């Protein structure tokens, strides 16, 4: 993090909106295409169950304020979600228009229209008075915690969000591709929640604030700290200059105006984050960007529309290649040695394993390497938390309530769902907040 003013000017120029805002006339026209399905599949497909036909009809009627409120009642981060959501597999993917050979309604852009209008005109009001003695701590400053905190605060609870980063907002601030969501927009939402009376405190729980102190002061603790840093490749040369994992790379280009990018960039991994990093490298001025994935196009976990987008950005894809060493003879990455792989037998999940082919090694010369593997390492904190069960690399919870195996702790977001979208985190946070409130009020 630097003191750079956000959004960075370079990013405004190079990361123009992927889906530009609608003006009010085109928003009304688009809103009027919506059939207004009853018990609409788009609402069902939205993890936060935003009443999509209702907010869209309000845009059509010219009641944009009512539209924004409809969205916010369901999803306090309606702005971030309108820009960051993979709508193709959510609301827009469920639109009945698909069954009629017609273009689905542009729900994401309509939501953005209503949210931008709302945030531009928003004036802070008086926070809801605190009505309950029980205080709640939310660990992590990302979407899950913010949604949990906002819901509880609206119900009259005092809430503190603990986050160790310079800026709150978690991955909504630091982790979404700039052409979808800028940090300044995520921060507007944080400001709104702060104005509602939620306290944001920059501190690392477990280090700056001991967990037992937290447990004494707060009646309930919500775990919304996400997944932590990205996995390492586990190969020689990984810690040299010119190697930066995708999440750190994205965080830096979004918040620093002087991030250098390589001439030839190798991105390793086949997920959505790999694609975000690769597209960013192209836009930041890399001459060539190559994605290497150890399986094939078919197994690649990225959304198909993200893959298509990367191809449009002129990212090169290489299948069946696994890195074995980063070459850095002069203390700086100069290339990656790969081994070719072949797909073997399917594993327990049905996905075919990539197995190295002996003697097939090759070197790819490059001057920047961006590993983009998953995130699975939890903060130390969780290992020491009393009585919280972890299953399949995730905090085990009762899904409808977010309750963990320790009755004082609730959890949601990436640390529970393994790393999904902002909207999933918001849904988790809100469900947990309601369960916590229920617990306080009715035991």
């Amino acid at each position, binding site marked *: 993090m630097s003191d750079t003013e956000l959004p960075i000017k370079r990013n405004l120029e190079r990361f123009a909106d992927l889906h530009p805002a609608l003006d009010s006339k085109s928003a009304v026209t688009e809103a009027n295409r919506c*059939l207004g399905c009853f018990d609409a599949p788009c609402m069902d*497909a939205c993890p936060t169950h935003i009443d999509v036909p209702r907010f869209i009809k309000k845009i059509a009627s010219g009641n944009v304020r009512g539209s924004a409120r409809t969205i916010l009642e369901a999803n306090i981060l309606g702005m971030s979600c309108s820009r960051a959501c993979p709508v193709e*597999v959510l609301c827009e993917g469920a639109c009945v228009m698909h*069954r009629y050979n017609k273009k689905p309604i542009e729900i994401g852009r309509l939501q953005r229209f209503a949210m931008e209008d709302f945030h531009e005109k928003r004036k802070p009001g008086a926070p809801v008075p605190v009505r309950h003695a029980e205080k709640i701590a939310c660990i992590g400053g990302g979407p899950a915690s913010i949604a949990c905190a906002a819901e509880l605060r609206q119900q009259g609870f005092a809430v503190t969000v603990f986050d160790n980063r310079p800026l709150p907002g978690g991955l909504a601030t630091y982790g979404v591709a700039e052409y979808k969501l800028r940090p300044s927009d995520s921060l507007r939402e944080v400001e709104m929640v702060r104005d509602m009376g939620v306290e944001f405190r920059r501190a690392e729980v477990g280090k700056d604030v001991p967990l037992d102190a937290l447990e004494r002061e707060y009646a309930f603790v919500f775990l919304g700290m996400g997944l932590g840093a990205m996995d390492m490749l586990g190969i020689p040369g990984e810690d040299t200059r010119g190697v930066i994992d995708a999440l750190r790379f994205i965080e830096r280009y979004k918040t620093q105006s002087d991030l250098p990018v390589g001439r030839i960039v190798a991105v390793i991994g086949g997920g959505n984050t790999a694609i975000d990093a690769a597209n960013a490298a192209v836009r930041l001025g890399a001459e060539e960007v190559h994605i290497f994935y150890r399986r094939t196009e078919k197994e690649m976990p990225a959304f198909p529309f993200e893959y298509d987008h990367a191809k449009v950005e002129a990212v090169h894809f290489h299948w069946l290649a696994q890195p074995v060493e980063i070459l850095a003879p002069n203390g700086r990455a100069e290339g990656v040695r790969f081994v070719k792989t072949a797909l073997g037998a399917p594993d327990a999940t*049905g*996905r075919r394993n990539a197995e190295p082919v002996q003697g097939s090694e090759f070197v790819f010369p490059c001057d920047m390497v961006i590993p983009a593997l998953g995130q699975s390492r939890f903060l130390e904190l969780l290992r020491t938390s009393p009585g919280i069960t972890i299953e399949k690399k995730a905090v085990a919870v009762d899904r409808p309530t977010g309750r963990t195996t320790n009755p004082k702790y609730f959890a949601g977001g990436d640390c529970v*769902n393994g790393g*999904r979208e902002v909207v*999933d985190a918001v849904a988790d946070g809100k*469900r947990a907040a309601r369960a916590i409130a229920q617990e306080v009020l009715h035991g």
Partner: protein
Amino acid sequence: MADLKTVFMGISSPNPFWLASAPPTNSGEQIMRAFDAGWGGAVWKTIGEPVVNTASRYSSVDWNGQRMMGLNNIELISDRPIEDNLREMAEVKKRYPKHAVIASLMVESKREVWHDIVKRAEDAGADGLELNFGCPHGMSERGMGAAVGQVPEYSCMITEWAKEAARTPVMVKLTPNVTDIRLIARAAKKGGADGLSAINTINSITGIDLDTLIPRPNVGGLSAHGGYCGPAVKPIALHLVQQITSDPEVALPISGIGGVAGWREAAEFILLGCGNVQVCTAVMHYGYRIVEDMIDGLSNWMDEKGYRTVEDFRGLTMPRMKEWKHLDLNFKIVARINADKCIGCDLCYIACWDGAHQCIHHEVKEPPAVREARSRQRITLTPIAKLDQARGGNGHGEAAAPHVPHVDEEECVGCNLCALVCPVEECITMEKVETGKPVESWEQRTAGRVYSKPGQ
């Protein structure tokens, strides 16, 4: 190949598409461009003592993102000198002898003034005259336009004056702003009219600016009621035209006006007995060029139906418009939903439930509100292949098949509402059900019964 040539009140034109007296016919230059584009005739913007117009003059109603579903104007008759209009009319007639040029007239309600304007218009070469008894604003405050057209005696009298001087056919343009348009039509007939045109614009206030609270159109912070036209008025116009064409006491050629924007509306007016149609708003919206598809579309339709000329289908629908008491009460239809086409929007379901007769259902019979609440409780996740595979899911979510509602045919009253709201073509069809009962109208069922009329 269809022949679109028509003869209306003895005036021939290449097709039944005439421009109505309005801004598109304000000058000779415009009308010649319109004829070049394909229009068959034009009724000149009403000629009379030149007026002063306001700014602004028009306002409209947008609907569902579409512009100008209805247009309202407070413009008066021509603001150009009579001599200019008539000189240009002569020029147009000289250059376009085969096209119909009609002079629309409106002057002070004095016999000699009418005689004078009629003669001058005919001397300029007008093929016929249209008496503007309909302008609903401004002119009516000065004793002209609708002030004449709303009083049968005045309509009759001024028609007589015009006819005293006229050598060409005279039609009277009727205002819809009356309780019974037939009375005015009969009065015009009595005055000697050779034909009628209907309808003129409908009294209207299109709306109010909710920021300034000023009605539209805004003339320096004030407004006045105007005349409404455009696609929104077609059903009203069709009904009024049908009232006139079905009245045996009128029996005059009628030029249909009101919301004609394409060949389909033109066909509808002609099917109800009109000899031709007049168009204004659609041209104000899109320009003269729209006539190309009007000609093309009507010709293609006529070819498909086997009609060679406009006369072949004129009035064919008239016998099918009846009073309600003659309709068959034993005619039964029910809604059928084509499951293959259903997209699952449930609009038919909620429309029937809230707006009709509660006979469309889902598998699980529960009130709509319960269903909606249940779907909100569901836990939904963004499908992410890698994570879902680890949990045994199917990767990218597949859209569930739509739940197709079904119709309780015993309960269905055959009202059409579900088919009207269904967004998919041919998905809900209304199917005839044989009842085995004979045709029986209300009149037949209640034969002999005498109903008292209000006031009796």
